């Protein structure tokens, strides 16, 4: 679960990592070539006048245009009254920045300066696997640096198609460019899982965004928040529809055959409890989840989807005793996000008994809506088989920041995919 590690490393500027800059001839010449196009991007809190978040950025497309990560400047987009943005050059020059547009799905943001900043870097296609890449930025506010690493290609099993960069990115480098041998941008630094496992946003998404902005002359977006909400909502609908149309793998759990992985972005793991000696309850579980976490702010990431099947078997317990244990299990395994009342409503739930493949399940659907992102909800589904005296199945399904109607439709297809095998 490298994503969980990612979340902790995103932009937290308090861990001091030791990092090394490989002394290579190419990297030193490359640094000199692009130095004037690399900037530190800073978000300033008006209340104190000091920087609250730092990241990196680079000149692209036009001399006054900077590209960086959305997560670097998200506190500004979430509260433009309280924050502003500026840049710091390698020579110590600073100046204000304005936001042009963002792509939250791929964690990109385009900023504009009042004066030309430097020569725009060229972009290029991703080189072959194994090629040397050079990543630039200002790690931990220590000074502009260049890091050498290896391209390990686009991630196949994730929805954001990030590039796996085997090099050491650190917080503060987010938004900086990753260059090929010729000094052309092939990706944008975005995250690290530590130990030389880092991630870059593929250049194609930056190109798409820049193309769109070029058409309107890099005029700042008028309804930025509305745009972000639409991007998220459309993406959720499109993703859920795609999943519904796929052929799904099937897995067997206890006496049920149930839907397994729905496509390459969802991977399934065995999550059975290790049986303790003398345990009277056999527990076998499979968990499927995607790796998608769309960054909205420091405390809120959406896109996660997870479903879990847990099979319970009584080892010689009388039914009331088995059901006592079964009921304990039914109380756990619920949604765990850091969303609070500023972000979401309370959950509203409905419980019914549902006939699924000839077995009765006590099924509950819960929904809570995002207050600032119209159309997005957290959906929580849980169901427990109730008829059998000595076996049980608990099905949990949750989606974070998703379209409710499409989620329920996906649920409908999943439930119809259950098959009881007596």
């Amino acid at each position, binding site marked *: 679960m490298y994503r969980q590690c990612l979340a902790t490393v995103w932009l937290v500027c308090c861990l001091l990592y030791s990092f090394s800059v490989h002394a290579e001839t190419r990297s030193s010449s490359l640094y000199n070539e692009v130095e004037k196009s690399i900037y530190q991007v800073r978000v300033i809190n008006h209340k104190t006048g000091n920087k609250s978040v730092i990241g990196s950025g680079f000149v692209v497309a036009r001399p006054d245009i900077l590209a960086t990560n959305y997560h670097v400047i998200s506190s500004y987009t979430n509260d433009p009254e309280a924050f502003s943005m500026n840049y710091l050059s390698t020579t110590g020059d600073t100046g204000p920045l304005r936001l042009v547009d963002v792509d939250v799905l791929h964690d990109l943001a385009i900023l504009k300066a009042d004066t030309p900043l430097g020569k725009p870097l060229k972009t290029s296609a991703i080189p072959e696997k194994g090629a040397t890449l050079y990543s630039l930025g200002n790690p931990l506010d220590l000074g502009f640096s260049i890091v050498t690493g290896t391209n390990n290609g686009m991630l196949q099993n994730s929805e954001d198609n990030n590039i796996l960069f085997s090099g050491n990115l650190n917080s503060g480098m987010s938004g900086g460019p990753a260059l090929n041998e010729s000094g052309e941008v092939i990706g944008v630094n975005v995250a690290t899982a530590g130990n030389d496992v880092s991630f870059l946003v593929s250049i194609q998404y930056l190109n798409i965004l820049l193309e769109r902005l070029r058409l309107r002359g890099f005029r700042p977006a008028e309804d930025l928040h509305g745009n972000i909400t639409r991007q998220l909502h459309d993406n959720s609908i499109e993703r859920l529809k795609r999943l519904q149309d796929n052929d799904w793998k099937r897995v067997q759990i206890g006496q049920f055959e149930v839907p397994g992985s729905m496509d390459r972005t969802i991977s399934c793991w065995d999550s059975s409890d290790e049986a303790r000696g003398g*345990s009277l309850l056999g527990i076998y579980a499979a968990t499927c989840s995607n790796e998608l976490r769309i960054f909205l702010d420091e405390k809120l990431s959406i896109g996660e989807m997870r479903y879990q099947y847990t099979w319970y078997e009584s080892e010689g317990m009388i039914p009331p005793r088995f059901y006592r244990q079964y009921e304990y299990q039914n109380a756990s395994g619920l949604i765990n996000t850091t969303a609070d009342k500023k972000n979401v409503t309370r959950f509203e739930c409905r419980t019914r*008994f549902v006939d699924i493949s000839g077995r009765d399940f006590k099924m509950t659907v819960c929904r*809570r809506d995002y207050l600032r992102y119209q159309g997005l909800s957290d959906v929580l589904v849980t169901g427990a088989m109730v008829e059998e005296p000595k076996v049980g199945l608990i099905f949990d399904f949750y989606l974070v920041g998703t379209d409710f109607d499409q989620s329920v439709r996906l649920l*409908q297809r999943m439930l119809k995919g259950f098959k009881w095998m007596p």
Partner: protein
Amino acid sequence: MDAVKLMLEVKTRSLNHYYPLERFPVRIGRALDNDIILSDNTVSPHHLEIERLDGFRLQVHNLSGENGSRMNRRSLRQHEMAEVQVGADPVNLRLGNRQVRLLRSDMDVSRTSVRNCSGLYAVFCHPAWSLSLMVLTLLAFLFENYLQARLAKDITFYLGGLMPYLLGLVALTLVIAGISRLSTQRWEVGPALSLAALFMIGPHVLGEIGHFLNYLLTADWPLEGLMLVNNFLLLPVVLYGYIRLIHHAEPWSALGIALLFSTPMLVYQMSDLMDQIALGTEFTGEAEFNRTLSSLDIRLQPSISIDSFVTMATEELEPLTGKADAGSE
């Protein structure tokens, strides 16, 4: 009926004193020259004088100006004379803090002196009931231990788990019996055991009923309601029954004592309830719905199809933010 006499009853703890009133006037007080002497510090040396007018009609003369007198809850001024008829109901007098009654010797006294073992009171009376309640309580906790254990265990494990409950039962019984002994001068171990067993098994039984109803109705309110009953009513009600039976208290005074003894627990439960209400209004990220499961699977809700379930969810779970916006406009 000439044989019927007027009596004066002086209430003392556990054993009342009775004085036949034959020669009038009768003077009552703490001084040794009175007809009836009450050695109570709140009674004046010469407190009250009673004169017979005719038959059962009496005149009460309040002599005390210190701690006062009351007749049938009415306060008497110093030197006030009041007339009163002693009928089927006794006349209640209060001299200082001391309760005194004027009554007829033909008054029905069965209500206060006979142990009433009929109906529900039987559980306190018969030793067989007390023992059965004790055994039932212990069996219930034994079964509960058995249900809760997830690992295979020997019978000694379950019996070992029962010991704290047994200890609690015995300790509670002794405390109750001890208090009763102090006030009634009798050992009432059987009723005390019944009372202790009821205190222990009551919450458990209510919990089981609540769980059954929760599943039956697919709702959380039955158990919540029964827990309110358990927290606020069980203790006073059981205490009331016990005090009525063992201490032969009048209904109102039994209620008063039961409430008095329950107060610390009631106040504790009230503060707990307030905390819960306060927490309930706080934001929670947790979904709240009925999670009960039951091997009996007795429920009122029928099973519906997947399609109906999905339709229901889509229709009933409408966008919450939209509604909130509409409400504020």
